[in-house]
């Protein structure tokens, strides 16, 4: 005999369907009402025409687009190089900070001081110090390129951030792992390389990607040293025409870069959560 749901169960399911239909209806209705109210409120504002003209002008958007795009190319290159080098430097700092050997004590102190300083200093200040201070020293063999010095400043700041994130990852690896690896005969270096770091980095990947997104936006700050990035290109156009549309263009381009990265971060952390649930770690 096939399964026959009870009368009570059928009633319960019908009630659930009714409730679900009702809440969908209410959701649609409230979205429409709020949407209409917002549209009327914004488009009906006395200054709407002026705001639309100065922020969403098609004419200025098309003239600014190529300039902003060529600026964005600089942002991208700076971001890729700065994120790679920040990661490597951050990894070294994290390993130094979590080391226990007494011989490495000076290195530990150095890494801690570095992190304290560059995590605390506002990026803009680092940019001024490095970008205008170093060339001011007058070494002829040293570059005075705004792009290179700006990238160095980004690396100084972001390696401190990433170092802290990676350190948290290393500390989150269960000490038993390290002991087990040592008991199996792995040297401390091998333990670090094959047991601790792989687990640590996997734990903090979403956090590191978050730093990457933030770095992507902050790459624009090097424009204070004279380099023309996407935002600066937009600013130049905006100041020529007194129209803010170029900023909106730059914003849209930045968002279109960030969204894939954000979705990837989400996907990755979801995957990890699922894996953890399956392993029964929760």
């Amino acid at each position, binding site marked *: 005999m096939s399964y026959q749901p009870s009368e009570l169960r059928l009633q319960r399911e019908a009630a659930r369907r009714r409730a679900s239909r009702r809440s969908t209806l209410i959701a649609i209705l409230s979205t429409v009402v709020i949407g209409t109210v917002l549209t009327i409120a914004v488009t009906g504002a006395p*200054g709407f025409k002026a*705001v639309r003209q100065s922020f969403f002008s098609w004419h200025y958007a098309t003239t600014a687009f190529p300039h902003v795009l060529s600026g964005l190319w600089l942002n991208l290159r700076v971001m890729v190089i700065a994120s790679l080098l920040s990661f490597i430097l951050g990894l070294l700092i994290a390993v130094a900070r979590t080391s226990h050997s007494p011989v490495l004590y000076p290195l530990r102190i150095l890494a801690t001081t570095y992190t304290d300083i560059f995590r605390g200093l506002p990026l803009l200040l680092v940019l001024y110090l490095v970008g*205008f201070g170093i060339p001011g020293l007058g070494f002829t063999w040293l570059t005075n390129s705004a792009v290179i010095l700006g990238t160095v400043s980004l690396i100084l700041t972001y390696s401190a951030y990433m170092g802290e994130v990676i350190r948290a990852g290393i500390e989150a690896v269960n000490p038993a792992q390290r002991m087990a690896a040592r008991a199996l005969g792995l040297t401390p270096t091998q333990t670090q390389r094959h047991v601790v770091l792989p687990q640590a980095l996997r734990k903090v990947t979403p956090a590191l990607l978050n730093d990457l997104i933030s770095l992507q936006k902050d790459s624009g700050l090097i424009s204070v040293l*004279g380099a023309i990035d996407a935002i*600066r290109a937009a600013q*130049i156009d905006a100041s*020529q025409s007194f*129209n803010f549309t170029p900023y909106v263009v730059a914003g849209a381009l930045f968002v279109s870069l960030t969204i894939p990265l954000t979705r990837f971060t989400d996907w990755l952390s979801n995957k990890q959560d699922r894996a953890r649930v399956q392993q029964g770690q929760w």
Partner: protein
Amino acid sequence: MNRKKLGTAVTLAALLGSISFGISATSASAATLPTLTPGVLTIGTDDPAYTPWFDNNNPSDGKGFESAVAYAVAKQLGFPASKVKWVHASFNSVIQPGKKAFDFDINEVSITPDRAKAVDFSTGYYDVAQALITTTKSKIAKAKTIADLANAKLGASVGSTSYSTITDVIKPKTKPSVFDTNDLATAALKNGQIDGLVLDLPTAFYVAGAELSNGLIVGQFAPKAGSDQFGLVLTKGSALTKSVSAAVNALRANGTLKALATKWLASVGGAPVLK
């Protein structure tokens, strides 16, 4: 009297007021002008306000060319110096849409047709030329023509027509550097990060003479047709634009603008014109 009649009377009075204001626009008196705060003229400028346009970053002392012009315009409109209030207005707050926090802004803003779509300008109060400065150590220190600048890395500050002078007139092979302020651009010139810096001529004289120990003016650029003029900035469609323009015109006609320029920007002669 009932409410409706009162309303009509008020409207009528306002209408009469605006008509009489329209007629007396040229000889406006402070009381009838629709300023932000009645009886007070609110003038905006950026902070810091640069020499020689202002003095000691203090717009309210009447020293420096633009401060002096602002007070002369105020006087022409019927506001004594005590009725002038200065407010800080950043570049972005000057170009934003909508009502501004000042009656007019004076901050070396060049009049262009594109900009005039977003804000109102008074007639020009100063004809400005762009100039190139450098240091004696620089490779362009001896440049005589625009062609000599082809390989130079030049800088300008953002929001200035100096930048378009580089891109439209000099057209060097290297991409120019653009800075937030003249101070940062000057620092880059001192460090040798840029070979030369384009500024408006009076600022160029000030920076080359007072801020750089080894500064020199390479030359100025012949103004384009319909030359570059500084104008006062007002809210788009401001009721004051006509009166302010009339005041500037009167000051030009009676020689005040020229006298003030001679007084505050005296040293501006004598820079060779680069071709």
